[in-house]
């Protein structure tokens, strides 16, 4: 079982909320059209994520523009009881865009780090799916060895393990909540492209 919904799944769930909660409570025809266009953009990116294609810069830009439109223009015009849903949709769009931009590079870095920690030869992954499988397999071994005390203070791998955990956590935050990373660790936060 996977522990994290992928960006594509988040967008799919967000489109359901958009269709079932936001659209019926929008009275202006312009806003309805804007929401429908937003749903189409989300569907395009969802496809790219699902088929592991690299995100096209145009689509990323459209997704980001749609998110800003939702948060800044449409959200204040929604009834009070739908604004929480709108915020959830905007959050899903932000996470999906970050995953499309950074996800594969982060996973390659994580795999290289895991291989080094576990004394495994570097494993080139053919595609993103294979990459994800290898990260999961080596990650499970790493987690098991942590539980058994194999990276406790005093072991040879301790310092490298701390460095790896910090790096992967910073990477995960860059996808899940870049603002948090900026607030808590301003010096280490990667510069994010502004769209």
């Amino acid at each position: 079982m996977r522990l994290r919904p992928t960006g594509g799944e988040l967008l799919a769930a967000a489109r359901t909320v958009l269709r079932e909660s936001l659209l019926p409570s929008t009275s202006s025809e312009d806003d309805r059209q804007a929401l429908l266009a937003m749903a189409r953009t989300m569907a395009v990116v969802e496809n790219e994520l699902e088929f592991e294609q690299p995100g096209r810069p145009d689509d990323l830009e459209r997704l980001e523009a749609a998110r800003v439109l939702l948060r800044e223009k449409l959200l204040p015009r929604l009834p009070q009881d739908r604004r929480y849903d709108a915020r959830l949709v905007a959050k899903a769009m932000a996470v999906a865009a970050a995953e499309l931009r950074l996800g594969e590079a982060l996973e390659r870095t994580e795999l290289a780090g895991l291989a080094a920690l576990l004394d495994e030869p570097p494993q080139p992954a053919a595609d993103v799916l294979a990459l994800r499988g290898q990260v999961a397999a080596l990650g499970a071994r790493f987690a098991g060895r942590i539980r058994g005390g194999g990276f406790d203070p005093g072991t040879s791998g301790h310092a490298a393990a701390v460095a790896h955990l910090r790096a992967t956590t910073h990477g995960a935050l860059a996808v899940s909540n870049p603002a948090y990373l900026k607030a808590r660790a301003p010096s280490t936060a990667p510069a994010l492209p502004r769209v």
Partner: protein
Amino acid sequence: MQRAHVLGGGAIQQNWLIDVLLDDRLAELVLRCDGRSTLAVSHSRAQEFALQRVAHAAGVTVAEPLWLCEDPAVIGAPFFVMKRVAGTAAAARVVRDTLLGGERATLAGRLGEQLARIHAIAPPEPELAFLPGPRTSPALDAIASNRALLDTLGAAPRPVLEWGLRWLERHAPARGEIVLCHHDFRTGNYMLDDDGITAILDWEFAGWGHRAEDLGWFCAACWRFGAAALEAGGVGSRDAFYAGYERASGVSVDPDAVTYWEVAAHVRWGVIALAQANRHLSGGEESLELALTSHLVPELEFEILELTSGEP
């Protein structure tokens, strides 16, 4: 019965506002019963009723529990009735609206006092005989249950949560004195009106434990709702919270013990968040909100690494 109105929220429990005539006097009450799904780890309504009664008798500010009905034939599920209390619990409002809760400078201290009164309840307490005692120690019990829950979620690894659990195992305090812990004492679970605290809510996870468990949970960075500098739940200073606790309990707070339970708080909330996301992933319950919960976990992991990095 004059009026009945269901309150929002709570897939696990339902709360109804009811107005009833008792001896020709109108009484404003709340009826609490099981919702459509129940959580194995949370207490039954009868147990919650007992906890709230004991807490009320100990001087904790809670809605006064009045009657319990365990016969499901009456309304379809066991329920209890308590007096209605006015106020706001929504965490974002509590943190932002500083006119709530009376004199803000003293709120953290008054919350510390409330917690001290809960912790004054200790075993054996006949009304709470249903609560299991700690098997080994509160710390080791918590590690074991979090590992067990992580393992049931499946194969996808969370090395930082394992790192936190291993750190907790290496630093686990001895069993120590056992008191009643609320186990979800945080901003969002108490109610305020313009003058002060009107009720401590959500007793469904209460149980025997170590007093620093609740102190750490309340102060953990994940429960400050955007007011990171106000380390006591986003509403006050840690010093004021500790001072209120110490005044009412006569026990001095051990900051290292609180730090230990802050690490445990982030680990526990991380494991619960993954379990919630899993409810979305495994198809039982499709929900964008549950799905996004897993994206809180990196923040918790960040805090775990920060808190554990300074020590051997």
